[in-house]
């Protein structure tokens, strides 16, 4: 009883940051989430380590020169064709930087996606995905892609938590990154109810109990789902980025089996585990003993994913993606769509 009272008092003293609110009870998850890349999916330009550590970035294509220069606590994005130039301070950096980081800026009230992004592999700039083949007849077209309000809302809808809009193209408030409430619907009401000392009416849905397809739909709100890619593409190696589409097309995918759900291998609260052998136990959940559905690998019992989930290079993105289409991959095989 005393513990409950202390807890309620602690929560009452908290601000509105969901992670902090939730941490009072859910310490392990909240601590892990701090280092999760998803938590840092959106940063103000002032907070981006890439921009801070690379104060003078440049890129050139044809007659257009691009630069991102640090001035005080701002990063100024500029494009010039040698005659004129367009400059604007970068407002937001999207992406954790594992693959790359893309920048948003505003000009004359409209949002733009910068034509160039930062790629850690290059330690520099290259075309933002989708910009390589864009028409660049003038400075305006060369500087970036104008994005409409619907798309801006979708950007912030996934890269931040509870962005509040009041009809304008700029969010009134938002919490950068994927915080608890992004996946745990009703988290704020639940935290408020706990603060009042009556959490009973706001019992949260246990996401861990979700079926594989339900979970895929939840993750699929931001990570394009099987349906998104199956209906709209892209076809070919560019769909390597869409893990759930690739996974669903694996022979071993079973919509009724939670051992193949996203969370069977990935802890959404933590960092991405890069040690290949750490996934062996996940594979062996099914492939430990031979049965009607699962065979035993005759080659090895270790580092399963190095062969069965090969890395595929996407030159445009300067990154090697793990193919989530689990299979017996042989050298020289055609990319299975």
């Amino acid at each position: 009883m005393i513990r409950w009272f202390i807890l309620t008092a602690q929560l009452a003293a908290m601000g509105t940051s969901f992670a902090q609110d939730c941490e009072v009870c859910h310490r392990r998850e909240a601590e892990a989430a701090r280092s999760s890349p998803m938590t840092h999916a959106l940063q103000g330009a002032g907070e981006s380590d890439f921009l801070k550590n690379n104060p003078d970035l440049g890129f050139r294509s044809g007659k257009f020169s691009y630069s991102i220069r640090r001035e005080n606590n701002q990063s100024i994005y500029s494009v010039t064709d040698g005659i004129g130039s367009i400059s604007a301070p970068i407002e937001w950096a999207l992406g954790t930087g594992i693959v790359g980081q893309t920048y948003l800026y505003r000009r004359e009230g409209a949002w733009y996606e910068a034509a160039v992004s930062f790629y850690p592999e290059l330690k520099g700039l290259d075309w933002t995905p989708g910009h390589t083949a864009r028409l660049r007849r003038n400075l305006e077209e060369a500087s970036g892609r104008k994005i409409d309000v619907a798309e801006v809302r979708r950007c912030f809808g996934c890269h931040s938590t509870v962005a509040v809009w009041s009809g304008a193209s700029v969010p009134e408030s938002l919490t950068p990154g994927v915080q608890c409430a992004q996946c745990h619907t009703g988290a704020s009401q639940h935290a408020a109810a706990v603060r009042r000392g009556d959490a009973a009416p706001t019992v949260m849905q246990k996401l861990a109990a979700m079926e594989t397809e339900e979970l895929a739909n939840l993750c699929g709100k931001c990570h394009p789902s099987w349906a998104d890619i199956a209906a709209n593409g892209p076809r070919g190696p560019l769909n390597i980025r869409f893990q759930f589409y690739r996974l669903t097309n694996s022979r071993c995918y079973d919509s009724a089996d939670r051992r193949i759900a996203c969370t069977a291998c990935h802890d959404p609260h933590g960092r991405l585990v890069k040690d290949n052998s750490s996934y062996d136990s996940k594979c062996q959940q099914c492939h430990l003993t031979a049965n009607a559905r699962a065979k035993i690998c005759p080659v090895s019992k270790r580092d399963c994913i190095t062969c069965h989930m090969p890395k595929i290079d996407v030159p445009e993105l300067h990154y090697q993606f793990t193919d989530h289409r689990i299979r017996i991959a042989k050298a020289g095989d055609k990319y299975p769509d």
Partner: protein
Amino acid sequence: MRSVLVLTLAVSALLAQPQSEYLLRDAIALHQSGDFSGAIRLYQEYLNLRPDSLDALSNLGAALAHEGRFAEAITEYNRALRIQPKNPQVLVNLALAYYKTGRISEARERLESVRPMLPNNQQVAFLLADCDLRLGYYKKAIALLDPWEKEMPNDLGLSYLLGTALIRDQQGERGGKVIDRILRNGDSAEARLLLATAKLNARDIPGARKDLERAIELNPRLPEAHSYLGLAMLNVGDFDAAAAAFRAELQLDPYNFTAIFQLGTLAKRDQRFDESLSLFERSLALHPKDSAVEYQIATVELATDKVEQARRRLEKLVQESPQFLEAHVSLATVYYRLKRREDGDRERAIVRRLTADEEMKKAAGK
């Protein structure tokens, strides 16, 4: 008493006949002098006395159509056709009225029925070909126009129609020759639109955009140019510009299917679901049973949690169009939402098969 009444009626009918004929004569005179509203009034008065007059019904329809009152014109033409179902002139006029109100399928139906009666009528043939083009029946349009091309190789209107049908049917080589023929007559909005259509087919979006902008510069009122510019802008992801282009098309032609349909998809994208549904319903009125529209309506239903409605629509769609990949994808999603896992798995397997077939076809074509 009864015999007196019969006689009175007969006498008044005798007296009414010549008087009504004056009415018709005056109505025709007003019609010919360009006083359409006056003519409409007199035709209507005449028809109160002689409701079965084919000429008056047909003329009234024409006068109403001239005034832009197409819905009323359609009613009068249909009344005329009840008297004489195979009257070719009324059928053509009715087709034109349907065409003007964007009811292209109905216009096409009437024109097809009148074609055997007027096999050498150029207006009927070209209008029917135009309907075929608008409905996506490119091969039919080509078959219809081919004989005319031999007779009128230098007719620009014909070249434009045929070129459009060939380009949209992916017959690039022959289409290119027709475009060249058009271009020999100098730069024109029509030629630019055709070039742009060919470039859109070839996925040369920047090139298409350039030609479309030039076409609109040359003739801002060219039918379909804004619509195609909208499609090009959609392709480069400039949704604001696409919406503006589609709205510009609707200013010129409020029944343009592409513009209405694409504005619906844009409204859906912005999650303005009520607006998108209303636009899709308008699209469906123009192209009844269009599977792309039906599919979009199902996706709106799915997005607004009307899962059962979406299921019914999608099941019907895949039954009618078993190769419709996107419909199978959405149906799989619907089944999983309804916890019908086995049905979901089955639909997913169909999607995989269709995708693999498509890939094989592509590989074979290379």
